[in-house]
């Protein structure tokens, strides 16, 4: 969002891009581009964690296979997740306040209800629907989760022509 600070005519190009991306997902055009197809990767990671746990990131079990750049210390954290977080004063999956607490089910119901009422769920369904259509077109397997061919393809492919 550095563009907003600089525009002498008061525009925010970043917001325009966000509006266009929203539109392209609602209309299903996003699967036509390499970057657009990646929306499924986001929906099935941060999107999934949000409506399941109430956190955008819920990283126990998300190791260096998907994120090798996190480095060896992250492997140690993953291997000792509960003890590390207890040492850090977390209330991991516990009731009441605290770090990475378990958010009560009725709170999560409210969140999911908000997603339904405001079109959040609709967009998730859109992303899945058009991705499945594109996967069939590219005849790549796409079933749930992240281990399938289409997901790994969009997660890893970069045609290298983006920085002329």
């Amino acid at each position: 969002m550095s563009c907003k600070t600089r525009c002498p005519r008061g525009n925010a190009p970043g917001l325009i891009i966000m509006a266009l991306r929203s539109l392209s997902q609602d209309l299903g055009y996003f699967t036509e581009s390499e970057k657009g197809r990646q929306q499924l990767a986001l929906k099935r990671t941060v999107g999934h964690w949000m409506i399941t746990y109430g956190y955008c990131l819920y990283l126990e079990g998300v190791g260096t296979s998907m994120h090798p750049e996190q480095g060896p210390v992250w492997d140690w954290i993953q291997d000792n997740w509960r003890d590390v977080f207890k040492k850090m004063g977390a209330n991991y999956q516990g009731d009441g306040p605290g770090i990475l607490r378990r958010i009560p089910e009725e709170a999560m119901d409210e969140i999911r209800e908000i997603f339904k009422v405001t079109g959040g769920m609709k967009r998730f369904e859109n992303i899945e629907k058009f991705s499945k259509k594109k996967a069939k077109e590219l005849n790549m397997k796409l079933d749930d989760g992240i281990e399938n061919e289409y997901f790994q393809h969009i997660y890893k492919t970069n045609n290298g022509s983006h920085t002329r």
Partner: protein
Amino acid sequence: MDKFGFTISEGRQIDYESNDRRIAEYIFDREPSFRLCIECGGCSATCTTGNFTDFSLRELNILIKRGENEQVREKLKKCMLCGKCNLVCPRGVNTRNIVVLAKKAFQKSDEYAI
């Protein structure tokens, strides 16, 4: 690319200080009118090659001044030297001669020879 699944992207910034501007100096010395260019695009508008390829004489002039020699060397090859651009230039720059001189300049240094 191997271990982490990506390569570090290169910046697209023109680093003015580290570019080599001998080609530009060579042209400025032999075609002073080159200084008059106001990058208005009249030449590239009328340019025949520009109509069929991504060649733009206006952009080429700028890349020469900035010392982006790699790109200049590639783009130079597309110019047919027909000289239509000279007729259009509102500042009377001998644009055709700039391309001729640039080609000559590149021939001189073996490292850049076309």
